[in-house]
Every structure is written in C-alpha cells, then in structure tokens.
C-alpha cells in the first residue's frame, strides 16, 4: 500500500493526469508534465531544509520510464491513425529497444560517483538520437517532397527520436544544449575535414 504523498503515490497521480491530458498537443502536454513535476518536487521538499535529493540516474530512469513513453507513443499512434496491430508492434519494439538501452546505462551508473560518466553517456545518447532523427527526417521529407505519403512508422520513429532530444535537454543546461546543437548541426564532412579532402582529391 503506497503512502499518501509518497513518491509512488505522486507518480501514479502524475501518470493519471498525463492520461487525462492525452488529447492536448505534445507541447501543451510537455508543459503540463513539467509543471506537475515541479509541484511534486515542491511537495516532497516541504519541511526539509533542502530539496529531496534525486540522482541523475533516478532522473533518467524516471524520464525514460515505459509508463511515461507509453502514453506519449499511444498519442502518436492515434495521431497517425495507425490501426494495424502488426504495424503498431514495430513501433513498440522500436520504443522498447530505445528505452532499454538508456535504462541499462542509468541502472549501471547509478552510483553518485558515476554521475559524471553517466552525464557523458547522455551526451553520446543525445548525439546518437539526433543523428538518427536527422536520418528519419531526411527519409520523411524526401518522400513528402515527391508528393508521396511518408511511411507512418517512420514518422512516429522520427517523433520519438525528437522527443528523446526534448526530454534529454531538460537534463542539460542551456549552454550545453547550445554547444551540442552547434556540434551536431555542423556538417559531419566539415568536422572531419572531408570537404577539403574531397576537393583536393577531385582536383588531383
């Protein structure tokens, strides 16, 4: 039996509220969730000198819990009107594999002494997710520009990748996000000096 006001109790309420606002837009729902999370932290902090300590690992496990992403993913599937169960299962498999990967890291690096290492891995995860999203976005829009409808699974995968970035950004500070954005936005060939290599190679 969970205690009223316990983290489990508040988390369950949070999930119920997330369900209630599932018809809202993603941006509105994200804002509501962030507000609710703040409320939970404030409630938990009442009567103590400092906020309830929450490790980075706990924060990652919380933000990448299947319950949170289930609601979000269901809303995407509904939005894209994907009815076929076999197609839905492709999306759930993709989601599970993504979540398991980051959860495994957060479980393994749960010791506060490992926090710096976990933070580094979140950066790798961010870069990986953004690179993956670039590829999904490319496939979706090269199809769109041809006047064809992009594969809805691909569109949902793009949204899930993009949402990963949004969730991760809440764990970074503004400057980290700017540096990451600049890094990943610079064309990879430029970063690897491949452009100049190719130019000199084509002249040869």
């Amino acid at each position: 039996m969970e205690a009223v006001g316990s983290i489990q109790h508040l988390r369950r309420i949070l999930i119920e509220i997330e369900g209630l606002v599932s018809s809202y837009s993603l941006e509105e729902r994200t804002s509501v969730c962030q507000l609710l999370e703040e409320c939970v932290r404030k409630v938990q902090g009442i009567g103590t000198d400092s906020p309830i300590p929450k490790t980075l690992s706990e924060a990652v496990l919380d933000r990448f819990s299947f319950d949170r992403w289930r609601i979000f993913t269901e809303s995407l599937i509904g939005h894209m009107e994907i009815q076929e169960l076999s197609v839905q299962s492709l999306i759930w498999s993709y989601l599970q594999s993504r979540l398991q990967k980051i959860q495994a890291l957060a479980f393994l690096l749960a010791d506060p002494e490992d926090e710096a290492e976990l933070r580094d891995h979140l950066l790798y995860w961010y870069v990986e997710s953004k690179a993956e999203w670039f590829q999904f976005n490319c496939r979706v829009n090269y199809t769109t520009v041809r006047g064809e409808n992009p594969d809805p699974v691909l569109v949902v995968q793009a949204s899930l990748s993009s949402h990963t970035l949004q969730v991760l950004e809440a764990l970074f500070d503004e400057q980290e996000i700017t540096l990451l954005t600049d890094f990943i936005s610079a064309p990879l060939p430029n970063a690897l000096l491949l452009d100049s290599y190719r130019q000199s190679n084509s002249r040869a």
Partner: protein
Amino acid sequence: MSFVDTSIINRPGNVTREMADSQDYGIVKVDDNGNILLYNRYEADMAGVEPSHAEGRSFFTQVAPCTNNRLFFGKFKEGVSNGNLNEQFKYTFTYKMKPTPVEIHLYRDQETKTNWVFVKKAA
C-alpha cells in the same frame, strides 16, 4: 498559387510584427545566413518556441533543424545567392512537435533584400 496574403507577398518590407502575428500561418523573416529576425505568433505556437527564444538564432540549424538539408536550406541558400528565391513545396515537421504536414513558401524580396519563410499547416 501561394497561401500567403498578397498584401504581404507584394510588400514584405511593410510587414510589422503586429501584422505578422495576425496571420493564420507562420511567418519567419531571416537574414541571408538564416538568422531569425522576426518569428510570428502562429509559428511560435506551432513549433512551441517563443519568439524571444527564436529571434537571433539560426532558423535552419538551431530552431528548425528539420530544415537543415538540401531540400530546404539548400533551396534557401541557392535562391538567396541567385536573388530569385521563390520556392513552394510540401514538407513534414517532426522536430519536437507532433508530426505536422505543412506547405512551405520561401521568398526573397529583392527590393528590400529580405528573406521570408512562410509555413502553413497542410489541409
């Protein structure tokens, strides 16, 4: 045929923030490098990015990285370079928003040397 109001497409130099905010489609004014000079209310609501956060940043790499490819940014750069940017095409936004099919109109006004990205949700 563009979805952009003729009073805007014919005289983009006269577009004020108030006028831009009253339109039912996205209006983004960018400099030749793609840095945002004006970001209207519709675009802000659709993308979930406040104008104060968007303006001053690169549209193509920082605010709407889904446009950072040859299809979108490439057309923009080519059109600005040639001075004849006037491209319309369909696109799908997936970055930090629910998947949203849109129509895009990229336009450069040679008289005022201003560049515009117009965005309308597809019907």
